[in-house]
């Protein structure tokens, strides 16, 4: 007689399956139980369970529990995961994990347990066992019971055979895969189901059939849980799913089938992406000074994370379009966008689209853009042709507003990605727009600075932050606004042998003289670094050079030498750098005297281990001295608090948090220069991710200006 499905699976299960009747006598004992307890089936069946597998000291409790249950008591230990001690035939004891279920056949109770030896289990095994246990629990008793349990699970569960055909899918899986019934799903070839979706991984790379965990297992590979993003071609709906699969083995240890759980993690993933995205957005926006660059940054930020196209339109005093920046996921398509712009009227229609947003300051969301809308909007045949070439799927227009003042709007369009924009995207776009408004207004003000100042400024800062192997750098610079041509803050990063030197400082003077002094300090440092290795000695050298000047020339400086996993810090009259580990923020180094100011002074080196995943933040007093409307200073405490709340310790995130905390605090323009540089030592996981991103081109850079923007180096393009 052919075995029932339950027998079939129980005999091949990883877990020991032991059943007993209401007298406590073994009635079933599968091959796994033979292995686990070292006792053959015919030696076990018919004997008391307690004598075989329960350590002697626990037998009384076992007997009492059974007696109480049969007398009508509660089955407190039933149907849940227990960890107990088991007994082998050779008398040794070992930890087991088990579940016990009770079944009543109308006259008698029987008890069924799934038992695993957990002496040496790993995380991965635990996960797999959990899945298998789920199945076993579901399969015990009858198929009807199986349906009742798995069928009610919120997560989608599927079982596939070796030919990838579905043996089973619970209602959640049927619904998630977009089918009306199980039968319809069963009769559809797996490849055809895959074709219904655009499937990509977390890094944006396409996921193919052979990447799916259950298919990998069937192909004899190992399968880690896989996070995928699916966009239904038909509806444009985006979902994030976490796929976990486990094998079901036959007697010979061959994979007979796979069970896969499809967990819908869309909400968590989108919230997480939103956080990361906004942190990057803040860094990029808060730190750019150039007006046109800011507009380009805004446009490029949204692509491809939010949409396939993004346009920034600003409004002039007459309510007309002023400046424009466009970004497209495929730069080759930008020409199309430019040609389309030629068709748009000078004066916008105040009752629709951009014109309406300019007028009302309210967002507009077009989840679907039917062809009729294009026909209606087209001026002539060529225009319609261009509009159709875009392949509009969905569009969103959000205002860029500063308080009551509407500066312009962001237009986001999806096309090739096939994704439909929704309220979540609208919220995200509105948050980006709010940050963009501040950045645009700031850059508008900054662009009024004199060109002489700008030219000199360039000489104070490196053209671009270099890439330091194993580290990630980001910087931030806001020059003083009022009463000064050029500020005195500077930073620099350069290699010396196998090490890297990082300096940041403030020449505490203003104007052209300060620029000359900055230049002197930087060049003295760079030259001296060829023959001096100690940061303290470098500071002493600068101090001596400054004292030779005819007029008082003082300077604060912080010098950090990075040698693989060590950081050596010397401080001359400068705020101590902050060191951010996973759970706390501390200072590094010791205060030393201002450079160029005092006789008979010396500096000390402090060397520490730079832990992977940690970040060193060097900053100038422009940050802590920043003042708000009521005369309060930003201060060290506020800085520490801002940094404690950084989501991760990545350089760009740290700079972003700093920039946004400062922007929120400060009401007017900066009185003083403000500079900061973050050095993040990559953890192995982060380094691997960067390498993967670089290889797949998934994290396409935002065209960072390394000098002014909070650029994340080491993974650009």
């Amino acid at each position, binding site marked *: 007689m052919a075995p029932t499905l339950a027998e079939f699976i129980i005999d091949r299960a990883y877990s020991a399956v032991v059943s007993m009747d209401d007298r406590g006598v073994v009635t079933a004992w599968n091959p796994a139980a033979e292995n686990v307890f070292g006792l053959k089936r015919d030696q076990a069946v018919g004997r008391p369970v307690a004598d075989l597998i329960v350590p002697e000291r626990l037998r009384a409790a076992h007997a009492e529990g059974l007696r109480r249950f049969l007398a009508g008591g509660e089955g407190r230990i039933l149907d849940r995961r227990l960890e107990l001690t088991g007994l082998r035939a050779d008398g040794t004891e070992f930890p087991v994990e088990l579940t016990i279920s009770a079944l009543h056949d109308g006259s008698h109770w029987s008890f069924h347990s799934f038992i695993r030896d957990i002496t040496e289990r790993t995380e991965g095994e635990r996960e797999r066992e959990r899945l298998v246990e789920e199945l076993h629990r579901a399969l015990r008793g009858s198929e009807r019971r199986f349906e009742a349990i798995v069928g009610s699970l919120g997560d989608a569960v599927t079982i596939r055979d070796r030919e990838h055909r579905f043996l089973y899918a619970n209602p959640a899986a049927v619904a998630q895969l977009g089918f009306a019934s199980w039968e319809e799903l069963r009769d559809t070839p797996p490849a055809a189901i895959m074709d219904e979706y655009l499937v990509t991984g977390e890094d944006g790379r396409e996921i193919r059939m052979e990447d799916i965990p259950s298919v990998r297992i069937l192909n004899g590979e190992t399968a880690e849980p896989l996070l995928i993003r699916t966009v239904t071609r038909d509806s444009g709906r985006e979902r994030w799913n976490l796929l976990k699969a486990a094998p079901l083995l036959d007697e010979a240890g061959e994979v007979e089938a796979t069970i896969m759980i499809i967990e819908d993690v869309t909400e968590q993933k989108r919230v997480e992406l939103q956080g990361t995205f906004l942190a990057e957005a803040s860094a990029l926006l808060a730190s750019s000074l150039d007006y046109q660059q800011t507009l380009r940054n805004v446009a490029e930020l949204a692509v491809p994370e939010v949409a396939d196209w993004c346009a920034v339109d600003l409004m002039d005093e007459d309510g007309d379009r002023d400046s424009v920046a466009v970004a497209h996921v495929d730069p080759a398509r930008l020409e199309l966008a430019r040609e389309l712009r030629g068709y748009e009227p000078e004066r916008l229609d105040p009752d629709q689209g951009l014109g309406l947003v300019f007028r009302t300051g309210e967002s507009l969301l077009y989840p679907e853009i039917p062809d009729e809308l294009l026909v209606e909007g087209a001026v002539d045949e060529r225009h319609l042709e261009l509009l159709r070439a875009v392949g509009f799927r969905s569009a969103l227009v959000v205002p860029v507003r500063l308080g009551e003042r509407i500066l312009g709007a962001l237009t986001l369009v999806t096309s090739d990605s096939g994704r439909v924009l929704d309220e979540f995207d609208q919220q995200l776009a509105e948050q980006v727009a709010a940050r963009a408004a501040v950045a645009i207004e700031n850059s508008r003000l900054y662009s009024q600075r004199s060109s002489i100042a700008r030219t000199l400024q360039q000489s104070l800062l490196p053209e671009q932050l270099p890439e330091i192997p194993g580290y990630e750098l980001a910087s931030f610079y806001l020059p003083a606004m009022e009463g000064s041509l050029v500020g005195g803050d500077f930073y620099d990063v350069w290699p010396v042998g196998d090490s890297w030197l990082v300096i940041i400082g403030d020449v*505490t003077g203003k104007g052209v003289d300060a620029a000359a002094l900055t230049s002197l300090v930087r060049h003295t440092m760079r030259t001296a670094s060829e023959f001096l290795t100690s940061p303290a000695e470098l500071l002493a050298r600068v101090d001596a050079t400054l004292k030779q000047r005819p007029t*008082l020339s*003082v300077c*604060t400086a912080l010098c950090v030498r990075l040698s693989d996993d060590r950081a050596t810090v010397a401080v001359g009259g400068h705020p101590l750098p902050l060191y951010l580990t996973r759970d706390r923020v501390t200072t590094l180094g010791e205060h030393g*005297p*201002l450079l160029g100011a005092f006789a008979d002074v010396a500096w000390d080196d402090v060397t520490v281990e730079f832990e992977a995943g940690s970040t060193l933040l060097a900053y100038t*007093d422009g940050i802590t001295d920043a003042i708000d409307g009521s*005369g309060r200073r930003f201060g060290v405490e506020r800085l520490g608090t801002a940094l404690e709340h950084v989501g991760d310790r990545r350089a760009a995130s740290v700079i972003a948090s700093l920039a946004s905390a400062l922007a929120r605090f400060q009401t007017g323009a900066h*009185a*003083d220069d403000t500079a900061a540089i973050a050095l993040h030592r990559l953890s192995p996981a982060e380094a691997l991710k960067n390498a993967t991103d670089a290889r797949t081109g998934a994290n396409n850079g935002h065209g960072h200006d390394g000098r002014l923007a909070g650029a994340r180096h080491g993974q650009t393009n």
Partner: protein
Amino acid sequence: MVRPTEFKITRGDTQTGVTLSISGDLDLGTVPVLAESVERHLGDGVETLTLDLGELSFMDSTGLRLLIELDQQARREGWDLTLIRPRHETASTVLKATGADSALAFKDSPER
């Protein structure tokens, strides 16, 4: 907390010279005011000058630079400069962190 006091310079004459008592924030905006005041007193022939920073609530790097300039100027021109330490921590921290506290002619603020 609102700025405790406006920046203010109060002149007090002693037998030996002039004391300028400074309160409030000594920063980018107020450094020129103090520099001008000191310059004026020196022009009036004051040879012993005390800057009482006891009530100073904040000092930035430009304020520190002014103190160093005055210290060097006094030695160069042969007049006496005495500095009284700020009592507020925010201002005294800057002096300690930059080494100015021990390098310049600071005295403790007399108790009032």
